[in-house]
């Protein structure tokens, strides 16, 4: 006797309030229909066994979807997730690095700071990733439940049924011409690294001495005051590089326009780089003395080695970069 009531309660508590009473009443009468006139607990058990698990029965009565994101939105959801998660991770890492250097007091050595950043950066990337995942999923779950036209057909850009004409809106990207997202993030990462080195050169570039388990920073190699005279033009180069990376991300393949942009950018950055390097006061006197003693060469030799070598490598890599851009943009 009691079993029937408990069974009905187990079903109805999983249902929306407004249907509960009616379904309870119907279940009650159905179960009584199935029982013989003079029944015992065994009979009740047999009948309830036929009706099956209350969870499954309740599931049948519910018309809300039993999933978070259905076939209509799943594809868009996964695409967005793949796009946003790496961006969020990179931004959080960059902001961790930036934060560290804002508070940098010059006491810690670079290696220790780098290790700190790695640990904290990974932790921050994971937590930002979880946050992003949660909010994106929540938004899609809400859309899934509020979209009245949901017919479980995958969503297209025009919000209509798929036709072969939709293919015309998609650019065909040959593999050799394609720019992977990894490459773009590599570019951005590189920008972040060299910009950090530029603005904190007096803490980063210089002479280190290993002592015990810590590296000790003895003296900077460059004159930060002289270096920072160039900051407006360096900022422009940073902005151009970011614009180029975003342009690559959007187009995801090499075009003629992009190759030209790349060439102009490489030219500007080479000029700026060389202009800074040939400034006679850029290298600190202490560093020159230290190195000439160490290598037993004259100060002029050292300068021409460092500056000449740096300029040579920069020019070669810039030239290669420009040519590679033009070559890829020509591939059909």
């Amino acid at each position, binding site marked *: 006797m009691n079993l029937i009531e408990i069974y009905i309660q187990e079903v109805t508590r999983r249902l929306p309030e407004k249907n509960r009473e009616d379904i309870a*009443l119907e279940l009650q*009468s159905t179960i009584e*229909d199935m029982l013989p006139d003079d029944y015992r607990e065994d009979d009740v058990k047999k009948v309830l066994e036929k*009706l*099956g698990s209350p969870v499954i029965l309740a599931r*049948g009565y519910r018309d809300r979807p039993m999933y978070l994101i259905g076939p209509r939105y799943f594809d868009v959801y996964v695409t967005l997730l793949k796009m946003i998660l790496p961006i969020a991770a990179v931004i959080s890492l960059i902001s961790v690095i930036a934060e560290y250097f804002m508070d940098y007091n010059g006491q810690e050595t670079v290696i220790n700071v780098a290790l700190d950043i790695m640990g904290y950066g990974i932790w921050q990337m994971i937590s930002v990733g979880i946050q992003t995942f949660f909010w994106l999923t929540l938004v899609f779950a809400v859309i899934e439940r509020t979209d009245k036209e949901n017919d479980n057909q995958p969503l297209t850009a025009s919000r209509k049924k798929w036709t072969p004409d939709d293919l015309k809106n998609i650019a065909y990207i040959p593999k050799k011409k394609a720019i992977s997202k990894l490459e773009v993030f590599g570019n951005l990462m590189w920008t972040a690294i060299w910009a950090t080195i530029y603005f904190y050169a007096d803490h980063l570039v210089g002479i280190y001495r290993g002592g015990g388990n810590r590296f000790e920073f003895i003296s900077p190699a460059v004159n930060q005051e002289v270096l920072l005279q160039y900051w407006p033009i360096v900022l422009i180069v940073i902005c151009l590089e970011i614009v180029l990376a975003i342009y690559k991300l959007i187009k995801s393949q090499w075009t003629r326009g992009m190759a030209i942009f790349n060439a102009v950018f490489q030219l500007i950055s080479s000029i700026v780089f060389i202009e800074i390097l040939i400034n006679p006061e850029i290298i600190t006197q202490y560093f020159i003395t230290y190195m000439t003693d160490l290598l037993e060469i004259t100060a002029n030799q050292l300068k021409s080695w460092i500056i000449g070598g740096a300029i040579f490598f920069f020019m070669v890599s810039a030239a290669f970069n420009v040519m590679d851009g033009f070559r890829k943009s020509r591939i059909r």
Partner: protein
Amino acid sequence: MSNLLNSLTTELRRGTLTLAVLSQLRTPQYGYSLVQLLEGSGISIDQSTLYPLLRRLEKQELVSSNWDTSESRPRKYYVLSEYGLEIFLQLKKEWINSSKELYTLLKVEGEEENEFN
């Protein structure tokens, strides 16, 4: 029966269940009488599927329902609506056509099997 065969069979039957239920609702039926009718015709039905199905059909306005409280036990009766009858007749035609097609298909297959034996 293997698990796969089980789930394929269930899938095969799921679509026909609506048709079977609609066919029996030309006269008003309550839940359990419908079960007995279907089982009388040899159609075994999972009851945890049937009762929710009846409600869904009602929501889709294919059947209408009313409570009969004149007897000792109140019962909810379901009957085909006008719209439901229309849909049922079309669905029936579809079913007969497709089962004919499938039968032809399977018959050819059957003959080939016989040749091998």
